[in-house]
C-alpha cells in the first residue's frame, strides 16, 4: 500500500469510527498513479487511455511544465462511438442556417481566405477534469489532472461568420453540431447551444492548433474555441451552426455538464439539489508539472518546481507555493503572459533540507482575488465537476 492510499484508508476508517455517513465524503487529490498506455492513438504519443471507443485520453502530469501543450500530448474526449476517420479538406463545409438572412456553406479554403484570420491562446479543460478527487466517487470517467491543455488556436471569429450570414430579428440561440455520430439513429446528436449574448469576439472557429492542422482526435478540420469556458461546448469537427429563437431541449444541454444551482454548487449523494445550471466558465486552478509523485531527488538538490495556472480569462495574479503543508506560502515566478485565457507557467526554486517525503503545494490566485481552496474544503457535486483544489505533489528526498 502506498502512503497516500494508506492516508486515504485511515481517513475512511476514522469516518467510520466517528459514525459519519459515507455520504459525507472528503475531497482529496485526483488520482495520479496512472501510467500512459503502450498504444498510441493517431497523431498522439502514448497517453493515459480510458477508452478507445469513444476515445478518451489524458495528458500525463509532467506535460504541465509547458505553457503550451503539444498537439501530440493534448487530451482527447469524445462522446459518440462513430467519429469520421477521414475528412477531405477540399470538400468539407460548415453550414450556417436557421434564423439568418442568407444561409451559408463555407469551405475550409473560404474560411482561410475570405475572413479576417485571428489567433487566441486558450486553455481547453474538461468540466470533469480531476473528477477522481471527489469522494464518494462521482459518476463519469475518473480523470486525473490531465483532461486539460493550452494551445494557440487560429481561425475566424464566429461573430464575423454570423455577420456575413446576417441574424434575423428574434435570433437568441445558436446550436453547434459536430460530425460524430451515435450507433443508433435515435440517439441524440452531440449538439450544444449557447445564447447569442454569451458569445463574444473571442469565440472562434479554429482550423489550426499550435501552427498545425488540428489533430483528428482534437476535431480536425475545424472546432469551436470558447476561451474561458469548459470544453463541453468547444464542438469538434464542427459541421453545422443553426440560429434559433428558442432554446431547444437537448440531452447534452439539459442533463449532462450541470452543477447544483446554489451558491456552493454543492450537494450530498443523499440529498441532491434539484435545480441545476450549466458549468460554463472555469474557476482558478493550477497544476504542478514537476516534480511529480514519482520524483526522487538527492538531499540538497536544487529543485525548480514548475507548473501552469489559469482561470476563465481574468488572468493569474500570483501562484504561491508551500512546502510545509500550507502553513507558509512563498510567491513563485510567473513566466511571460501569453494572454488572459492562456496557461501561465510558473516556477519556484527550492532546496529540500530534510530527507523522506516532501510535499509541494501550489495555489493560484487570479486578478479578482479568487484563489484555489484546499482540496478537503471542496464540496461534492454529483457529476464531479469543477474541481480546483490546491495541487499537491509528494516527492522523495534521499
Amino acid at each position, binding site marked *: 500500500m502506498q502512503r497516500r492510499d494508506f492516508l486515504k484508508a485511515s481517513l475512511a476508517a476514522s469516518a467510520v469510527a466517528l459514525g459519519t455517513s459515507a455520504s459525507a465524503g472528503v475531497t482529496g487529490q485526483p488520482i495520479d498513479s496512472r501510467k500512459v498506455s503502450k498504444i498510441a492513438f*493517431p497523431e498522439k504519443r502514448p497517453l493515459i487511455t480510458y477508452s478507445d471507443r469513444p476515445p478518451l485520453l489524458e495528458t500525463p502530469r509532467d506535460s504541465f511544465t509547458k505553457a503550451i501543450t503539444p498537439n501530440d500530448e493534448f487530451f482527447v474526449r469524445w462522446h459518440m462511438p462513430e467519429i469520421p476517420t477521414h475528412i477531405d*479538406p477540399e470538400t468539407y463545409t460548415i453550414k450556417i442556417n436557421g434564423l439568418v438572412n442568407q444561409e451559408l456553406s463555407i469551405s475550409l479554403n473560404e474560411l482561410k481566405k475570405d475572413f479576417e484570420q485571428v489567433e487566441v491562446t486558450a486553455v481547453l479543460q474538461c468540466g470533469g477534469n480531476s473528477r477522481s478527487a471527489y469522494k464518494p*466517487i462521482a*459518476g463519469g470517467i475518473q480523470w486525473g489532472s490531465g483532461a486539460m491543455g493550452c494551445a494557440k488556436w487560429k481561425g475566424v471569429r464566429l461573430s464575423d461568420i454570423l455577420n456575413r450570414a446576417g441574424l434575423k430579428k428574434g435570433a437568441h440561440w445558436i446550436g453547434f453540431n459536430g460530425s460524430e455520430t451515435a*450507433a*443508433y439513429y435515435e440517439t441524440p446528436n452531440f449538439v450544444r447551444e449557447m445564447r447569442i449574448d454569451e458569445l463574444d469576439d473571442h469565440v472562434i472557429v479554429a482550423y489550426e492548433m499550435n501552427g498545425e492542422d488540428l489533430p483528428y482526435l482534437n476535431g*480536425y478540420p475545424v472546432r469551436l474555441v470558447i476561451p474561458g469556458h469548459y470544453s463541453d461546448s468547444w464542438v469538434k469537427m464542427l459541421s453545422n451552426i443553426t440560429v434559433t429563437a428558442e432554446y431547444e431541449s437537448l440531452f447534452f444541454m439539459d442533463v449532462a455538464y450541470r452543477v447544483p444551482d446554489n451558491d456552493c454548487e454543492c450537494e450530498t449523494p*443523499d440529498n441532491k439539489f434539484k435545480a441545476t445550471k450549466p458549468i460554463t466558465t472555469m474557476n482558478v486552478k493550477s497544476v504542478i508539472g514537476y516534480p511529480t509523485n514519482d520524483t526522487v531527488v538527492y538531499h540538497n538538490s536544487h529543485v525548480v518546481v514548475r507548473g501552469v495556472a489559469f482561470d476563465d480569462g481574468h488572468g493569474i495574479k500570483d501562484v504561491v507555493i508551500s512546502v510545509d503543508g500550507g502553513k507558509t506560502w512563498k510567491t513563485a515566478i510567473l513566466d511571460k503572459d501569453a494572454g488572459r485565457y492562456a496557461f501561465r507557467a510558473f516556477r519556484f526554486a527550492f532546496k529540500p533540507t530534510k530527507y523522506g517525503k516532501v510535499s509541494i503545494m501550489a495555489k493560484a490566485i487570479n486578478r479578482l482575488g479568487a484563489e484555489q481552496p484546499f482540496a478537503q474544503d471542496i464540496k461534492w457535486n454529483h457529476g464531479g465537476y469543477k474541481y480546483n483544489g490546491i495541487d499537491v505533489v509528494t516527492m522523495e528526498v534521499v
Partner: protein
Amino acid sequence: MMKKIVLIAVLSFTSAFAQVEEPVEVPFIPYEIKMGKGFDAIQANCLMCHSFGYIINQGRQSKDFWNKKVLKMVIHFKAPISKEDVEITTDYLFEHYGNGELK
C-alpha cells in the same frame, strides 16, 4: 536562391493538404473485463456504443448508480435494452464494479 524558391513553393503546396492523408485508425484496446453471470448481456447491449474501458473507468459505484447509468442509456441514448437485460446488466455491474452500497 533558386533552391529557396523551390522550397517555399513545395511548402505552400503541401500546406493545402491535411496533415494526415490516409484515413486514421483508432486502435482497439483489449480492456480486461470480469467474466461472470450477466456478461453476455453486457457484451450484447453495451459494446455497440462504447468500450469496456468506459465502464471500468467509472470507478466502483453503488447499485443505484449502475441502475441509473443503464437506464440513462435507455432513456436518453435510446439504446434498445430490454427490461430483463436492464436488471441483468445492473446486477453484473454492481457485482463486479460495485462499492457494496445499494444507494
